[in-house]
């Protein structure tokens, strides 16, 4: 199972608490994780990536295994620790403010 940590506003929107668990067959990439996430929680469509272009929303970041994966291409394979469920895939709201 893939573990995904969402920012609090998106947990509220999706009506989940804690981590989201996703079952993904095949390669584990940003794209496949987000596809699975949006399939389970359709209300999240458009909140993490643009619904038309598929681009990550500008003020969100993707972290895993202490690395910033935000700028990796959508089909870049996520670390094995994420694919195995040992580490979560984090969707993080960028800090904005002083």
């Amino acid at each position: 199972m893939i573990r995904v940590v969402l920012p609090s506003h998106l947990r509220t929107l999706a009506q989940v608490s804690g981590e989201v668990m996703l079952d993904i067959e095949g390669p584990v990439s940003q794209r496949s994780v987000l596809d699975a996430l949006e399939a389970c929680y359709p209300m999240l469509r458009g909140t993490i990536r643009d619904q038309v272009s598929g681009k990550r929303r500008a003020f969100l970041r993707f972290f895993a295994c202490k690395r910033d994966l935000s700028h990796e291409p959508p089909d870049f394979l996520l670390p094995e620790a994420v694919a195995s469920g040992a580490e979560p895939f984090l969707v993080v709201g960028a800090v904005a403010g002083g």
Partner: protein
Amino acid sequence: MSTVRLLVGTRKGAFVLTSDGHRQKWEINGPFFGGWELYHLKGSPVDPNRIYASQCSGWFGQMIQRSDDGGKSWTPVGNKFVYDGVPGTHQWYDGTPHPWEFKRVWHLEPSLTDPDTVYAGVEDAAMFRSTDAGQSWQELSGLRGHGSGAHWMPGAGGMGLHTILLDPSNAARMYIAISAAGAFRTDDGGKTWLPKNLGLKSDFMPDPTAEVGHCVHRIAMHPSRPNVLFMQKHWDVMRSDNAGDSWHEVSGNLPTDFGFPIDVHAHEPDTIYVVPIKSDSEHYPPDGKLRVYRSRSGGNEWEALTKGLPQSDCYVNILRDAMAVDSMDSCGIYFGTTGGQVYASADSGDSWKAIVRDLPGVLSVEVQTLP
């Protein structure tokens, strides 16, 4: 006794304020969608328990929420707003072509006859319609496709389509307004549109009387007289007596004719309300005095309404969608401020009282009069 329900959108959530017909004691519920910007909420005139809300965030984009129980519970519905065809470009601040990009929904206008039909005014300026209660949205692209579209330019607050008026006597006729393109009218249900800005004069434009480019802030109509329109423009309060074909100024004795909202009394089609703001660069009331101005003659002669409103050290603004009127026998007027106050008058504006003082900055106020 009838009840009154206020739908208040703020910079950090939505609030639902309810009262009986006396409108003296209010119950305040919220925040709903705490932390999100609620640009606008509006109920269906056909089914008042159906309410649509525009919820957005710089982080997470646009959501549309729908309530079918008067705002007690909400369901996210469709948030996919895709411009029809190849979007093309409009003019950017520096005069260069800029691709149309959806940013947010400024205004939601439910149909007068069908609770499943609702219109959305969006930034970058365009109009969308849903006929399935908000699940899916289609652009009425004849508006953006008007020949002038490539020359529209955003105002300082963005290029938003913020006003949608539905003609209750003619289902095919609608009016919209865009900052800073101006007013437009359709007579065929949204397929084609014509600019309706004759008589407007905007000194910030190279041709002050050009057909498009005016920064219209808000238009209002009384349902019993839909050919008469009132407009608060960037500067100037205007009136049209021929469904927008031409406009004339009715600023009269206002202390300043800059402002954002304008509204019409529920039972007196010639009684209108504005809130003068000092200037386009000083968005607060003149002299620190919060005054609503009322004209009982359809413009030109205005009286200041001050009873119950702060008359010193007040430097809030009142945004374009933040004023509404109820339809109780004694007409109620409501407005919200950028300082988080919501003021109510149960006597057509003669006296005012703050319902609540410390909400986040108010973006919009709508009112429902319920049996």
